[in-house]
């Protein structure tokens, strides 16, 4: 698979480390979240067949975190964003 890095252009997926569902960016606040909320965050996944937004880390490159939109049935990648931009669009880390 080729991941079209927003800054570096097309890169081989082998340069990246895969983490999982991009929802992992939205960790509940550990001081106020309930046990159930933390459990759901840490252990439960949507695991869709089809479009999946997921986190890839460019370890062998510029060490950026990316949010990649990929089809889990065909492996086709349709969008690549910097995770930083996604987080900022959600109003985090202004």
């Amino acid at each position: 698979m080729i991941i079209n890095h927003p800054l570096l252009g097309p890169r081989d997926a082998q340069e990246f480390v895969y983490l999982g569902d991009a929802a992992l960016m939205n960790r509940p606040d550990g001081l106020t979240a309930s046990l159930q909320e933390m459990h759901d965050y840490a252990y439960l996944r949507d695991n869709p067949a089809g479009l999946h937004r997921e986190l890839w880390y460019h370890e062998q490159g510029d060490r950026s975190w990316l949010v990649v939109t990929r089809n889990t049935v065909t492996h086709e990648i349709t969008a690549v964003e910097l995770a930083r931009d996604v987080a900022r669009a959600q109003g985090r880390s202004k």
Partner: protein
Amino acid sequence: MRYSGWRILKEALTGHKGWTAAWRDPEPQPAYDYIIVGGGGHGLATAYYLAKEFKQARIAVLEKGYLGGGNVGRNTTIIRSNYLLDGNEPFYEFSLKLWEGLEQDFNYNAMVSQRGILNLIHTDGQRDAFTRRGNSMILHGADAEYLTRDQIRQMYPFLNFDNARFPIKGGLAQRRGGTVRHDAVAWGYARGADMRGVDLIQNCEVTGMRIEGGRILGVETSRGFIGAKKVGVAVAGSSSRVMAHAGMRLPMESHVLQAFVSEGLKPLIDGVMTFGAGHFYVSQSDKGGLVFGGDIDGYNSYAQRGNLPVIEDVAEGGMALMPMIGRARLLRTWGGIMDMSMDGSPIIDKTHIDGLYFNGGWCYGGFKATPASGWCFAHLLATDTPHKTATAYRFDRFLKGLMIDEKGQGNTPNLH
């Protein structure tokens, strides 16, 4: 029809006109007592033991495609019970014992071959870990044996014993482990279930679940609604998709695991062997092909095919262990979809919906578990209590901190 040597003789003398279909192709009834979703190894084994051991009537198995067309037809056929943890080892040892009597039990030749499995040791730390695992296996009633370098050299003189990075220092052997003809397992269970009145319904995809007041009433399928008192789901690989019909999110991701077969070679490896310094395992089929595999691809996937980097990685593992296979050509590769759970261990449990039961999360170790998985799931469906070897396989173990994490990797499904 009972299969036997006499039957073959009789048919040979009468022109083979007496053979009948191994199972019926029935139309679905409006309702059943038990519906098993998934006509793979685990689903068929569940139906078989439910009918045979727990004497339950009116059972149907619903299969989206054809029987045994999923992971039971796509694996590397290894059976073993070499686990460390208390939650796992008794279950897998129960499974190995069932394998040992399986062919007589269901009257079908599944080619169960206890040719032994050998896990190679490459460092002193690994020797300690494997010795501990071997001791744990023995304490749970399984067999385990530490082999020295010289003993292994007698078995497999062609291994690269003095590899500069990964010298072979010994091995942990389980001589009762081995291989089984994987398709025949599905066929044997299917035939045994059918003979006991189970309806095996193929080309019947579950498209929804009818749930009212916290109780399941039946399933919507591509062949209409089918009512049921109890529904058991055993669809590993597609667990999240099917359980989404009940509004459930599961502690697992689906990943693709590739497997490989070389061209046919002269007899070379008489058992199963695993490389301890990378992820590579190999056995040789009766047709002569080396059957081998390694890591999952590592990203969520429902495509039954993987990518080239993992093929390269597996080939490198093989070359490090036995350099001469570089001359052998690869005949086939394929992929199967695994439920990768959050601790690398399976789930056999009730759900919060009355009458809905779940069996899945087998990661890439589901084949060896087939008989015990079927037995324990049948036990749960029939009695509403977990079988004594499967008490740890609960949904709530993540909430309670009771994970069964053989590799100690935490909630990273692609590393288990």
